[in-house]
């Protein structure tokens, strides 16, 4: 029988480290990633000779690992650990790093077992560094495989079999996130040391944000951000304050939290989290600062605060000015069609924003700011700004006829139509006159419907006969369920809902579609309605102040005598939004060091703050 001097020595050292509870050193011993030093190669050779793959040698190996755990009198021994060590040895013996998917699966099994070992209330903390190390390697492997689907395509097909669809739904990255989340929960729920959300982190609780950050990285990678919600709410409920953790963990966590809040349209709390991440980030960590700014800047733009030159000239802002500067200039300019062209799917800038996951949010949230600038300019050049002479006297308040806004919109549309004819046509942003739908935008025909006749050209209504031929199965089916849920037969050809001519005379409600819409509306009044809606939205959000009149449509700015029409009617966007949002400075998911008195303590006693409550949060921008 072959001797195993290296393995013996290795096991001896591990036993020693367990006794000393030296988790860091233990992790250092349990290397798995190539290139491995010679001593590991020798140990692998020993393992292959002495314990070749097979259930018998696995049993013997398991027995050798059992002695690593100190036997406690009557108490439960740490049985998960010997199994983990046995899996470590078989992993080292069997792994073939050429086959990445197989490596991934073996490593996941190993990590799962290590997380089980982490669960022990006495000894678990010893493997915390190992859990973190294995999680990182697994994450790296999963993300690498995720980016190269061709490497695993054939294996996925084989494993998927008939169950192909359901197999595809959980990616390797997501699977890894789930394992890491288990480790995160074990850290969070550790009861050793001082428990409670205000205590300093001890034991496994030191690993809360290390595990959370890794899990968040994986969830962002696989696009399953929604799965993070539960994590943030358990952190809010159970974690010690973030401030007690090292800077690297704080900054990383606040970055992911900020991005999560941003993607939930909670821009103000997102801005607080990201600004804090930026302020605490090491000044030489340029790539991290760059990523933080990539999301901090749009957060601010949406709320009406633009990056200053000084910020964009910082070394970490490299590559940001050329994307955010034009956006800010478009908002200031007020040309909503140019804004849409800038964000049209095929434009190069849109692709950058899409890659960063910012395109839809910015496109949806910033257009209202463009309209505000546009209204402001039309008001300056076409509105009644009030009579400065008549300050003391009673005069009409400053106002703008919405007809001017309508004329200006039409002019803008013409400008862009001309440009599209002469220049490159993209067809997505031009607005044309329609019989129905929006007058401020036009959509390319959906390819699904491109074969249909132009709806504008359809004038003659179908005859009853034609309608029945087409829709008879719906309008005059063989039977129906009555209000009691009982089946009623219907004479074929009879309309189920009765005769529209006789049975619904004098009724407001008519179950049959009526195409009378738009008959008396000319196009201008359709556009006017839309402009009124946009202004109403601006007023509701506090981005403009005043009132609208519907008859003889006007936007009026009362109370403008002291401050002037412009500052009164078009208040500063950032001041308006930040003043409103400041009322609730709480950032969901960020545990702060609580002041001993006041509402916070009361909320803690009552169990408040246990849930991330997103219901009270208001969106910024488009309503």
């Amino acid at each position: 029988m072959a001797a195993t001097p290296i393995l013996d020595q290795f096991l001896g050292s591990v036993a020693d480290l367990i006794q000393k509870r030296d988790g860091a050193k233990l992790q250092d011993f349990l290397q798995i990633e190539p290139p491995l030093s010679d001593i590991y190669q020798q140990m692998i050779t020993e393992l292959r000779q002495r314990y070749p793959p097979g259930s018998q040698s696995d049993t013997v190996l398991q027995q050798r690992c059992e002695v690593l755990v100190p036997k406690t009198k009557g108490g439960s021994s740490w049985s998960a650990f010997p199994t983990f060590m046995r899996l470590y040895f078989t992993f080292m013996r069997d792994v073939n790093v050429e086959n990445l998917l197989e490596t991934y699966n073996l490593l996941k099994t190993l990590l799962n077992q290590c997380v089980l070992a982490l669960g022990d209330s006495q000894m678990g903390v010893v493997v915390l560094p190992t859990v973190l190390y294995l999680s990182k390697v697994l994450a790296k492997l999963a993300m690498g495989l995720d980016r190269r689907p061709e490497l695993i395509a054939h294996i996925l097909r084989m494993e998927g079999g008939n169950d192909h669809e359901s197999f595809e739904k959980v990616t390797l990255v997501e699977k890894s996130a789930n394992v890491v989340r288990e480790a995160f929960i074990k850290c969070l729920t550790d009861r050793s040391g001082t428990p409670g959300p205000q205590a300093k982190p001890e034991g496994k609780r030191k690993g809360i944000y290390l595990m959370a950050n890794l899990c968040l990285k994986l969830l962002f990678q696989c696009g399953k951000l929604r799965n993070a919600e539960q994590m943030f709410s358990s952190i809010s409920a159970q974690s010690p304050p973030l401030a007690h953790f090292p800077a690297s963990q704080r900054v990383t966590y606040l970055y992911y939290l900020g991005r999560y809040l941003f993607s939930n349209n909670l821009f103000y709390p997102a801005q607080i989290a990201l600004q804090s991440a930026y302020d605490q980030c090491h000044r030489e960590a340029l790539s991290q600062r760059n990523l933080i700014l990539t999301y901090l800047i749009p957060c601010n733009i949406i709320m009406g605060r633009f990056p200053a030159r000084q910020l964009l000239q910082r070394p970490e802002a490299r590559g940001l000015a050329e994307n955010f500067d034009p956006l800010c200039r478009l908002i200031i300019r007020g040309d909503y069609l140019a804004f849409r062209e800038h964000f049209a799917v095929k434009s190069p800038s849109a692709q950058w924003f899409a890659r960063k996951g910012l395109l839809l949010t910015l496109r949806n949230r910033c257009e209202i700011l463009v309209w505000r600038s546009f209204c402001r300019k039309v008001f300056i050049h076409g509105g009644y700004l009030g009579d400065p002479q008549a300050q003391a006297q009673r005069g009409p308040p400053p106002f703008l006829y919405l007809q001017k806004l309508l004329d200006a919109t039409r002019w803008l549309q013409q400008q862009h139509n001309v440009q599209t004819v002469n220049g490159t046509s993209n067809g997505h942003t031009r607005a044309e006159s329609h019989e129905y739908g929006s007058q401020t935008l036009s959509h390319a025909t959906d390819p699904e419907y491109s074969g249909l006749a132009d709806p504008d050209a359809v004038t003659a209504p179908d005859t009853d006969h034609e309608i029945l031929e087409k829709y008879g199965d719906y309008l005059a089916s063989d039977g129906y369920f009555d209000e009691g849920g009982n089946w009623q037969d219907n004479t074929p050809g009879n309309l189920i809902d009765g005769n529209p001519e006789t049975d619904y005379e004098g009724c407001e409600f008519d179950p049959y579609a009526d195409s009378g819409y738009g008959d008396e509306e000319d196009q201008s009044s359709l556009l006017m309605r839309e402009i009124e809606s946009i202004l109403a939205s601006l007023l509701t959000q506090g981005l403009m102040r005043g009132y609208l009149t519907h008859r003889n449509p006007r936007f009026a700015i009362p109370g403008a005598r002291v401050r002037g029409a412009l500052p009164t009617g078009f208040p500063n966007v950032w001041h308006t939004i930040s003043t409103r949002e400041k009322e609730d400075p709480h950032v969901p998911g960020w545990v702060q060091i609580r002041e001993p008195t006041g509402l916070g303590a009361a909320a803690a006693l009552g169990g408040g703050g246990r849930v991330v409550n997103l219901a009270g949060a208001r969106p910024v921008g488009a309503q």
Partner: protein
Amino acid sequence: MSNSTPAQNKVESDQPQQQKPQVLEEDDEFEDFPVEDWPQEEAEQPSGSANGTNEHLWEESWDDDDAAEDFSKQLKEELKKVEASS
């Protein structure tokens, strides 16, 4: 913590080099920091005392009142034209 053990640092530093050629958009990944903790002074800009108050980093008043700017000028012309014709 284990982050500071020499063995792992070595592995960590080897990894990016192995992965870089095959990974697209690596720059979009929030990398691990090379050090675990640092004092707040090392986060602040050397010159900047006002890192907390970031007034010079953000423009809050950006409304454009420049009537000579191209778009405003054209808009003004157009509104005049419409006024005259009605």
